[in-house]
């Protein structure tokens, strides 16, 4: 106890025994004012549009409220019990996880392969290729979803026109209307749409591999395959953990694309948790914001769990690089 007090006392006084709370020079005070002035919009907007909705959704999850009535009735954990007992919630949860499992390995692996190619200084027009692969990322997702409805239209969409002309199918395939193909079609479009982001991550990671290491390995007789296997891939391992976790987390946010391409159908075959929440909050006959909020909180906890994994992954990656 005494030690602690002394310690504190030590921190409060400088070697000369003077108090550290010296009056700040006016310029420093003005700087602090400016810092807060410029931070205020961010703090206010983040508080109003991020912190408040999160806290509000926790509160709503404990009440019964349709969004129309003034009155909200406290129901405790009833909404959580109802969500967990709803087979359609677990159906949407299963689809969300299935979507994640389908997207992540393909996206991470193929972007790595492409990044290795695009990182080669021998490749002509590599900047053009990088831009081309990144272009879908900057297009509006909702527009992409609507356009893809036309692209995969079984009657007149270009995909089916080509398949028919090649004689591969007699009638158009109902890519988005058939429960067997709808989810996989969205998986394909999602990978194409967000391919560029993961690609950029890999390209950035590749820049961290020192040229000297390649040169040394080459002098030791390593060929292209040897360089890849014994130099590039081992050095990329820490980044692989982070990139995989970032990709994992991003696949949980697929609402806009799924809503515009399939609206969760046919018959819940592509209803991810986000659409399930939206349906109960806004598209139900009588909205149930309490129930929807409970589903959102449960899903939020799941996303949080992924976030914790991400933190652990980053820590492990730092350790692997010797920076921890």
């Amino acid at each position, binding site marked *: 106890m005494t030690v602690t007090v002394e310690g504190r006392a030590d921190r409060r006084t400088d070697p000369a025994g003077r108090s550290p709370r010296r009056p700040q020079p006016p310029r420093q005070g003005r700087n602090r004012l400016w810092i807060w002035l410029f931070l205020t919009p961010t703090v206010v907007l983040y508080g109003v549009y991020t912190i408040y909705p999160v806290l509000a959704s926790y509160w709503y999850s404990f009440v019964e409220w349709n969004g*129309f*009535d003034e009155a909200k009735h406290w129901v405790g954990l009833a909404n959580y019990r109802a969500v967990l007992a709803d087979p359609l919630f677990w159906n949407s949860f299963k689809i969300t996880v299935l979507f994640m499992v389908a997207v992540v390995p393909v996206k991470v692996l193929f972007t790595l392969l492409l990044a290795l190619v695009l990182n080669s200084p021998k490749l002509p027009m590599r900047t053009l290729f990088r831009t081309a692969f990144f272009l879908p990322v900057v297009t509006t997702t909702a527009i992409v979803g609507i356009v893809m409805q036309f692209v995969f239209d079984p009657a*007149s969409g270009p995909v089916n026109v080509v398949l028919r002309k090649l004689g591969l199918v007699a*009638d158009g395939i*109902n890519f988005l*209307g*058939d*429960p067997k193909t709808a989810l996989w079609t969205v998986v394909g479009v999602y990978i194409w749409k967000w391919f560029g982001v993961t690609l950029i991550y890999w390209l950035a990671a590749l820049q961290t591999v020192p040229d000297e290491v390649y040169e040394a390995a080459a002098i030791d007789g390593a060929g292209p395959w040897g360089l890849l296997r014994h130099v590039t891939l081992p050095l990329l391992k820490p980044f692989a953990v982070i990139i995989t976790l970032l990709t994992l987390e991003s696949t949980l946010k697929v609402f806009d694309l799924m809503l515009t391409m399939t609206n969760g159908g046919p*018959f819940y075959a592509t209803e991810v948790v986000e659409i399930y929440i939206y349906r109960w909050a*806004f598209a139900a006959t009588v909205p149930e914001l309490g129930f929807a909020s409970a589903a959102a909180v449960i899903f939020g906890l799941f996303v949080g769990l992924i976030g914790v994994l991400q933190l652990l992954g980053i820590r492990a990656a730092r350790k692997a690089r010797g920076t921890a």
Partner: protein
Amino acid sequence: MISRRRFFGASAGGVIGALAAAACSTAPGGGGGGQAAGAKTLRVWDHFQPREDLHKKLFADFQKSSGTVVQYTVYNPNQQGQALQLAFGSKQLPDVFTTAGVKLPQPRLRKDGWIAPIELSKEDLSAMPADAFLNGFTHFDGKLYSLPMVNYRQYGTLTWYNVELAEKAGLDPDRDLATWDGFRAAAAKIKSAGGDGISGWIAPLQFAQRLGEHVSDLAMAAGGVGATDPRTGAFSYGTDPYVHAIDFLGALKKDGLIFPASSSLDARTARARWSTGVAGLFFDGPWNIGVIKDQFKAFVDKVGVASVPSSEAGRPVVLYAPPKAGDYCAAATSKEPELVAKLLKIFTTEEVMLAETEQMDGMPVDLALVNKANVHPTYKKAAELFGRQIRLRPAPEVRNPGVSEVVAEMKQVEPDLGGIVQGVLSGQLPDARKALSEYDRKLTAERARAIKAVAAKGVKVSESDWVFGNWTPGEDYGHDKYKTS
């Protein structure tokens, strides 16, 4: 010379000032240009897309005569409910609105402070037919709460056909589209005569609610009595008419007669695709021709209409429709109730009702106006069919207003009728009868729960409120019958 610090300071001040100014001017615009300073403003939201031009003109005339600015917004009905939900929550309800998309019954909206009486007298409403008004629907405690714009005598499953494709297939629509078997055969003929890329039938399969309405109408055309049987008060989705109606749609799918992209279409996009001539047949309400005239003018002369098909030859088509609430409501939060009444009075004159009819949206409250109006022949035919085929069904809310509380208390049961139809058509629900019976069971349990919850608040209501022993199938259940029920 301005210093860098002073420049940044001035810039920051400017930005903050601009943000503050912008924050103060976020009210929705529209219609405000050039208005006199201090002029009063009314905001109107509705979902009557085919009437938009007429309403703009009427509101512009009102603005000229009264000096009151009217800010008018037409919504997609799917989005209007959400917009109203947010507006109510933020105390920004428009002065006048239709309740499209808000599924709470109007008695509940009245109780919760959404709507207020519209200050129109009996004389003001004298040009409108008396049977358009009903206590518990348009009136509460003798006061008008919602002004009817659309007749209850209409349904949304008229058989619209492409005249050119029907002729090419050698069809006599009135004869060949009269029954389910006829419809199926006609769709097959259209597909085979139409050639590559032409389908027999196009449907909004992504729009579950509309799909459910189609099945309900088809079920009634097969002898069904609607969602609940007035004789017993029980839910009746698991009965033969509903099962057979879904089987009928399934048969069209099995025959390959449905337009392949239907599963991605809602009502609007299905109509847009149908108007390009890719399919012969399309189920829709009377407003179809109004929208076609507005948005797909080149197709107007290729449009024909027939009744909803009957399940079998010789069975007369009888569909039951409950009395309906009015359409335009006045916000309880409006600061200008007198101006609201003055604005809504416009719609009560015969001249305006006739002009409304000519927009060919939902059927007018006075069906007789259709014959006087300059409308497309299909609209006249639709009015004639509705007058002949639709019967007024009993509404438990009229006998006991407490039923509205139960309806408002009931939570949505999933999958609902439309969802079940989607599931059967996509092959994910192999047994329609089982799914429909399960839906009945869940609805019955949910109604019982809601009755209990409402009764606990002191409202006297029970399952027997849904029972009407004096109801006779095939007959109108007029106002007088409630006295003896």
